[in-house]
């Protein structure tokens, strides 16, 4: 699974991108965030409050219950502020 981080999520995690193989019990975006939070102090800080974080699965916005699979590209970031 390809993980991408943007804005302060990227700053806290410490990398912009990583390839990981989450365990089988990680089925959705919420589960993935909970698992990622255990991987390092930076990850823990970034995912401390999942409600502040938005996600995209394969470049489409996705809520916490959206499913994630091994070959997906999953991105985490704060609410967007473009325009």
């Amino acid at each position, binding site marked *: 699974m390809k993980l*991408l981080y*943007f*804005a*302060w999520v990227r700053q806290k995690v410490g990398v912009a991108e990583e390839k990981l193989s989450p365990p089988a019990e990680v089925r959705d975006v919420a589960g993935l965030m909970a698992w990622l939070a255990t991987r390092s102090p930076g990850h823990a800080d970034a995912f401390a409050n999942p409600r502040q974080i938005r996600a*995209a699965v394969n*470049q*489409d*916005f996705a809520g916490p219950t959206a499913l994630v699979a091994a070959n997906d590209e999953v*991105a985490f*970031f*704060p*609410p*967007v*502020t*473009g*325009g």
Partner: protein
Amino acid sequence: MLTVRVQEAAFDPAAESAALAAGRQDVGGIASFTGICRADDGLAAMVLEHYPGMTERALEDIARQAMRRWPLTGCTVIHRYGRMLPGAPIVLVLTASAHRAAALESCAFLIDWLKTSAPFWKREEFADGTERWVEAKAEDEAAAARW
């Protein structure tokens, strides 16, 4: 005609506008909105980060949606990323139609949408060396929800 670009370089509103009218005689009006980097609170620069790949797809989706919802003859959305100094243009939306209401409404729709649904993030750098990520505004969600 639908043009979507995500780029670091500046854009040329006059050239983009001319392209929307070129070679056709059914364009009655062109509405545009240019978003500019303000110098609030001692801002020294604004850095825009985006999600390459998703950004282009998302902008193209929304431009197509505008073309379906309003009788537009053309639509252009250009959004910059990278470091912007105060006064720099950041985003350009242009809509062309036979009728003014379609052009004006779809232009407002597109810019409201860009604020809430395009994967861009703004970081502000201040003259005193501090920096902060811009937070999303509830009023932007409300503006987008009216469409």
